C-alpha cells in the first residue's frame, strides 16, 4: 500500500492537501493514492469472487452471485470487517478449470484481492486450487466435493460453508436402505463430483446391508438420456439419481417417460432439479419420490427466523424462486454456502486482526481454529461443525418428499450422522 506513495511524504502531502482547502470534504475527488492516506486500513477488503457466470454452471453462478451480493451488503451494513468495507471483485470462469486457474491468478496478482472465494463445480476447484496454493491466496470454495477433505488440495483451500458429498451420502444411506429399498441403481455425472457419489454412497450403503446393483455414469454435457436407462437392472428397488448441467430437466423428464406407471422408488439429489421449477411439464411422476436437500427450497412449517431473514435478504420467495420472477427458481440447496462462507471469512479476519495480504497465513490459522458454529443469522441453514485439520465443515442434511409438486422435509440428520474419520491434516503443511 505504501509503495504507491513515492514522491511526496505522507505528512507533506496531507499538509498540501489541507492548504489546498476542503480536503476533508472532497474525499471523493482526491487522487487515488491520497484517499486512504489518513489511515491505510480504510481501503476495502477485496474478495475475489470466482463465479460460473457462463458455461454449464451458469444457473448456479447467477444465484451464487445474488447470495454473495446480499451477504456482503449485510456485512457492510453492519460496519464491514475490522472497520473496513468489503468489496467483491467478480470474475467469470466459464465453469472451466483452465480459466479457473487464470482467474485465481488474476485475483492474486492483478486485483490485489485478499482472498479468493465462491467456486462450485468440482473440476474447476480441482483445477484452480493448486494455483491458489502456489500464490498463497486463501481460497474459500463452496463446492460440496470431497476433494478438500480428501487431502487432494492444499492448506490454502478451505470449505467452511458447505458440507461435502461424502458426509451427505453417509447420512443418506441409512434412510434409503431403511425406507426405500436395499437394491440400488446409481445414475450420476461422469466427473469428480459424480465419482464422489459413486464411491462414497456405494461404500455407505454396503455398510447398511444394501447393495448397488448398477452404476450408470453420464457425461455432464449429455443432452439425451433415454439410451442410458435400459442399463437399470429389473431387480432395482431404488433409483438413486444425481445430475448436473444444462440438461437436468430433460434427464428427469426422460427418466419419468422411461418408467411410466411402474417406477421403482426414487431418491435423488436435488442437484438433478436445482434451478428447475418443480411444476415443469413432465415432472408429475416425481410425486412421492425423495430428494436430498442441502437447504429446503420450500419454506417449511417450522421455518426459523434465520431462514426467513436470509430468504428476504437474497430475494427468494417461500417457494424458493426469485421474488421478482416466480419462474426464476433458485439453487437454494447450495447457495447458502456463499452466505455462510463469507460470515466465516468475516469471523476469521476479526479473530486474526486481519490487516492485509501479509496476514493471510494468520487468517488460515484463525479459520482452522474454528469449531462449532451455532444456528444464527450468520448460519441460517443450521448449526455447523468445522474440522480445522481437514478444512471441511459438517452440518445437518435434509430429506424431502415431493407432495403435490412441493418438497416437504421428512427427515433431518444430525451432524454426528455425517461425520467420518479424518483423511488429512492440512495443519501439518507449511503456510
Amino acid at each position, binding site marked *: 500500500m505504501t509503495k504507491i506513495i513515492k514522491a511526496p511524504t505522507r505528512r507533506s502531502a496531507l499538509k498540501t492537501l489541507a492548504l489546498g482547502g476542503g480536503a476533508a470534504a472532497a474525499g471523493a475527488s482526491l487522487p487515488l493514492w491520497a484517499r486512504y492516506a489518513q489511515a491505510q486500513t480504510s481501503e476495502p477488503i477485496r474478495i475475489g469472487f470466482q463465479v460460473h457466470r457462463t458455461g454449464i454452471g451458469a444457473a448456479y453462478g447467477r444465484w451464487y452471485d445474488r447470495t454473495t451480493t446480499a451477504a456482503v451488503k449485510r456485512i457492510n451494513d453492519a460496519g464491514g470487517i475490522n472497520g473496513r468495507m468489503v468489496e467483491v471483485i467478480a470474475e467469470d470462469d466459464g465453469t472451466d478449470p483452465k480459466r479457473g486457474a487464470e482467474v485465481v491468478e488474476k485475483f492474486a496478482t492483478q486485483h490485489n484481492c485478499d482472498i479468493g472465494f465462491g467456486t462450485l463445480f468440482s473440476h474447476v476447484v480441482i483445477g484452480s486450487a493448486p494455483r491458489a496454493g502456489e500464490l498463497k491466496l486463501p481460497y474459500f470454495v463452496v463446492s460440496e466435493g470431497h476433494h478438500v477433505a480428501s487431502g487432494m488440495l492444499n492448506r490454502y483451500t478451505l470449505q467452511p460453508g458447505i458440507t461435502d458429498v461424502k458426509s451427505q451420502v453417509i447420512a443418506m444411506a441409512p434412510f434409503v436402505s431403511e425406507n426405500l429399498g436395499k437394491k440400488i441403481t446409481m445414475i450420476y455425472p461422469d466427473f469428480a463430483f459424480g465419482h464422489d457419489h459413486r464411491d462414497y454412497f456405494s461404500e455407505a450403503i454396503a455398510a447398511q446391508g444394501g447393495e448397488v446393483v448398477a452404476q450408470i455414469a453420464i457425461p455432464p454435457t449429455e443432452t*439425451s438420456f433415454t439410451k442410458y436407462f435400459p442399463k437399470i437392472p429389473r431387480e432395482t428397488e431404488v433409483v438413486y439419481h444425481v445430475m448436473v448441467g444444462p440438461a437436468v430437466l*430433460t434427464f428427469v423428464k426422460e427418466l419419468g417417460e422411461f418408467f411410466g406407471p411402474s417406477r421403482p422408488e426414487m431418491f435423488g439429489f436435488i442437484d438433478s432439479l436445482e434451478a428447475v421449477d418443480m411444476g415443469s411439464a*413432465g415432472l408429475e411422476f416425481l410425486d412421492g419420490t425423495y430428494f436430498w436437500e442441502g437447504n429446503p427450497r420450500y419454506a417449511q412449517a417450522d421455518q426459523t427466523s434465520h431462514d426467513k431473514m436470509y430468504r428476504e435478504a437474497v430475494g427468494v420467495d417461500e417457494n424458493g424462486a426469485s421474488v421478482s420472477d416466480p419462474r426464476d427458481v433458485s439453487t437454494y440447496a447450495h447457495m447458502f454456502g456463499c452466505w455462510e462462507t463469507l460470515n466465516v471469512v468475516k469471523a476469521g479476519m476479526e479473530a486474526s486482526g486481519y490487516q492485509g495480504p501479509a496476514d493471510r497465513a494468520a487468517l488460515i490459522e484463525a479459520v482452522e481454529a474454528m469449531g462449532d458454529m451455532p444456528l444464527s443469522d450468520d448460519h441460517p441453514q443450521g448449526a455447523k461443525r468445522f474440522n480445522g485439520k481437514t478444512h471441511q465443515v459438517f452440518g445437518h442434511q435434509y430429506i424431502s418428499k415431493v407432495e403435490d409438486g412441493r418438497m416437504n422435509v421428512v427427515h433431518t440428520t444430525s451432524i454426528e450422522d455425517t461425520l467420518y474419520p479424518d483423511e488429512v491434516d492440512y495443519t501439518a503443511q507449511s503456510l
Partner: protein
Amino acid sequence: MDFGPYLMLASLEGAVTAAVLALTAVGLSLVFGVMRVVNVAHGEFFMLGAVLAWWMTSLIGGHPALGFAVALIVVPVLVGLLAAAADVTILKRIAYDPERTIVATIGILYILQQVTLMTYGPDARPVEPPFNTRLALPWVEFSDGRPQLYWPWGLSTTSYKLGVIAAASVVLIGVWIVMARTRIGLVMRATQMDRDMALAFGIPVEKVYGLVFGLGAGLAAMAAVLIVPIQQAHYLMGGDPLLLSFIVVIIGGLGSLPGTVVAAILIGLSDGIISVFFSPTLAKILATLLVALVLVFRPQGLFGVRRA
C-alpha cells in the same frame, strides 16, 4: 432389460437422433454442394433456431401446440433470412474464397453464440411439446412354443418423438422434391455443377447463393425447433450438431443429398445403439474413425461422385 427390447429402444432413440441429424446435415451439405462453402457457423444457426423457438412460444402463450406451430413455420424463415443477410454482407464480399470463408464463418459462429449469451443468457430453457403421450411398446416372447406379446419394463417412446421422426421425413422429402422437380432446384443444381456455365446461361448465381445459404440455415433451425421440446434451448448447444453434421456429410459424400440422409441414419442409429450397449464415448470414437477410413479409402464419400 432383455436383448430384443433393449435393441428396439436403442433403435428408436437412434432414429430420433438420425431424423434431426439428417435435417441439419442436409442443410450443411446443400451449402457445401452448391456454394463450396464450409459453413462452420452451421451449428449456431441450429442453436439460434432452438432459442428463437423458446422465445416465440413464451411470447405467444396459450396452448403449447399453438406457439409451437407458429415457431415451426416462422423460426426457420427468420434464421434463413439472417443467414442470407450474412451471405450478402460477408461471404459475398470475400468472393467465396475457400480459406477466407472458413475464417469468416468461424467469426459468425462466435458472434451468434456471444450475442445469444448476452441477450438470452446462459440458462437452458424448456419448450413444452405440442403433444406428448408415453407409448408403452410390446415385445414378443415365445413361451410354450407360441408367440406371446408382453410389455417389457421401460420399453417405451413418446408420441412426440415419433412425431419428430415423421416431421423430419416429410421435410426431407420436401427438400428432395424441390431439388429434383422444381425450377428453383434445377437452377441450384446447375450452379452446383458449373458456376461459370450457369452464369453464362443467365442464372443469377449470387442470388442462388443467398437462397441456398438461407435454406441451409433454415433446415438447421427447423431441426432445432423439432428437437427443442425434447432437449432444451441453450447457447452452447450448437457444438454437437456441427461436429456430427460434418461427420455425416463427409461419410455421405459432400453435396450428395441421398448420401447425407443415408449417412445420418447410419450415424444416428449406430450412436443410439453403440451408446446403449457400450458407451457414448465409444460411439463418437467409432464415428470419427469411420470418417478417417472414408477419407483414406473413398475420399469422395460413400455416395459422392469423384470430380474429374
